[in-house]
């Protein structure tokens, strides 16, 4: 009961302090919200654009034609050795009969059933590389297959991601750097706001300490206020990200809709919104905890 009363009184105190400094509170929420929206939006662009790109554009593929007289055991052995490669996502065996049927269907002239007994096509393996595999890893696998006696020939279709790997990497690093910079900016802003808040209350903290209040008792109103600040900043950030995403969708995705109705809008990624909200709350909470702790520490 005492515990509940303490928290209730800390929450009321936090609300009162918020009401007393409403303008400052709103300005800080908007500022933090906009700052947090920057890395959030970069993340949303990254994930959102990925959803617009067909998977075969981001995943490399190779068609490996096997030697005609390759026995079953050797083929399975080859498949197993490929499965062990970290850069390979999936291997599909395409028997020559299936390839013949597909060719017959696409030919449209006649069923090439006459060829069934003397099928001129080789068996093949479709090798699909992983989303995260790097250029060097894929090249090593392809080189290995080219020199393999069991392989007659192969076709390698590198993904756009692999083709432009160095550019993608540079852009990724730039995005990551910008995100880190803005997150750092958010943290600094939160810490400064919390420190300024606590400096304003220096006398109050000293008084409560001398009256025998525990550190927890003193910190609680600040932590409640910080949680509220983080929650609302996160909410503002989510609204900004959502708004920017809608604008981007209307400009970019409407053109793609003509190609495929499913590409009509860039889907909002829920992970981004949750992450932004959590970062806002955690940063704000840590800022308040740190500021009060330092003030209390300075007293002794």
């Amino acid at each position, binding site marked *: 009961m005492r515990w509940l009363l303490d928290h209730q009184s800390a929450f009321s105190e936090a609300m009162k302090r918020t009401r007393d400094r409403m303008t400052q509170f709103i300005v800080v929420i908007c500022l933090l919200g906009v700052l947090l929206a920057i890395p959030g939006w970069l993340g949303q662009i990254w994930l959102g654009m990925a959803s617009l790109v067909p998977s075969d554009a981001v995943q490399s593929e190779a068609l490996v034609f096997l030697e005609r007289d390759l026995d079953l055991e050797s083929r399975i052995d080859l498949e197993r050795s490929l499965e062990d490669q970290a850069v390979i996502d999936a291997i599909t065996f395409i028997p020559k009969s299936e390839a013949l049927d597909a060719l017959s269907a696409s030919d449209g002239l006649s069923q090439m059933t006459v060829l069934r007994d003397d099928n001129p096509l080789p068996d093949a393996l479709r090798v699909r590389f992983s989303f995260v595999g790097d250029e060097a890893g894929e090249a090593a696998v392809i080189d290995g297959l080219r020199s393999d006696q069991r392989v007659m020939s192969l076709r390698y279709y590198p993904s756009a991601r692999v083709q432009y790997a160095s550019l993608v990497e540079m852009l990724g690093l730039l995005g990551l750097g910008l995100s880190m910079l803005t997150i750092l900016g958010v943290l600094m802003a939160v810490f400064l706001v919390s420190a300024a808040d606590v400096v304003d209350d220096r006398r109050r903290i000293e008084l409560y300490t001398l009256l*025998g*209040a525990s550190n927890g008792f003193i910190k609680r109103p600040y932590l409640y206020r910080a949680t509220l600040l983080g929650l609302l900043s996160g909410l503002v950030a989510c609204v900004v990200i959502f708004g920017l995403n809608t604008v981007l969708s209307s400009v970019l995705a409407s053109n793609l809709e003509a190609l495929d109705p499913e590409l009509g809008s860039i889907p909002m990624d829920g992970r981004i919104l949750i992450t932004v909200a959590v970062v806002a709350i955690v940063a704000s909470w840590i800022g308040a905890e740190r500021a009060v702790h330092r003030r209390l520490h300075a007293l002794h």
Partner: protein
Amino acid sequence: MIEFESVSKVYDGQRPALSNVTFKLAPGEMAFLTGHSGAGKSTLLRLLLGLEKASQGAVRVAGTDLASLNGEKLARYRRRVGVVFQDPNLEEDLTVFDNVALPLRIAGFKEADIPKRVNAALSRVDLSDQAMTSPRVLSGGQQQRVGIARAIVHRPALVVADEPTGNLDPELSARVMRMFTQFQQLGVTILVATHERAVVESLPFRHLTIERGRLVSDDVGASR
């Protein structure tokens, strides 16, 4: 009640703020601590309130060595001490009643018990009629009396006052001192730091003088 045993306090790279200070204050005793600015009065009070730890020697209150207290134990110790400041340090957005009730709420008193204790404390300082007003509308002397009510509301065994009459005119100073005298008669141990020699000399209590961190005189006074 209070025991300073060969207490020294040295801040980093500075001359000692307190040097080998030894004295005892019996339960229910009242004493004045005088000295010029920078003589070491505030350091001595900070040691007594557990805001500092002695570099050497021991500070004991009711037999407890304050150096052994930390965190919650230290907070609990402070809840048994009343503190009066030169600036009463009132929360302006709380009423007089709520200001006086603060130590009780911090100490976890039941809400039902609080009005009785607060009203008793306010009546001791003749401010019963101001309970629901804001400290902003009170005079300096009234604010100081609210500060004193806040210091005694939880019936502490020890009251420490740091320049309690520093901002008051002589008449109000005398009134505040009379209040301390009344509390002392109720058995409260009181240590008042002040630089107003006239106030000290007009009252028959023990008088400790501190100069450059050293206790240079201990005049027992006429009260004991």
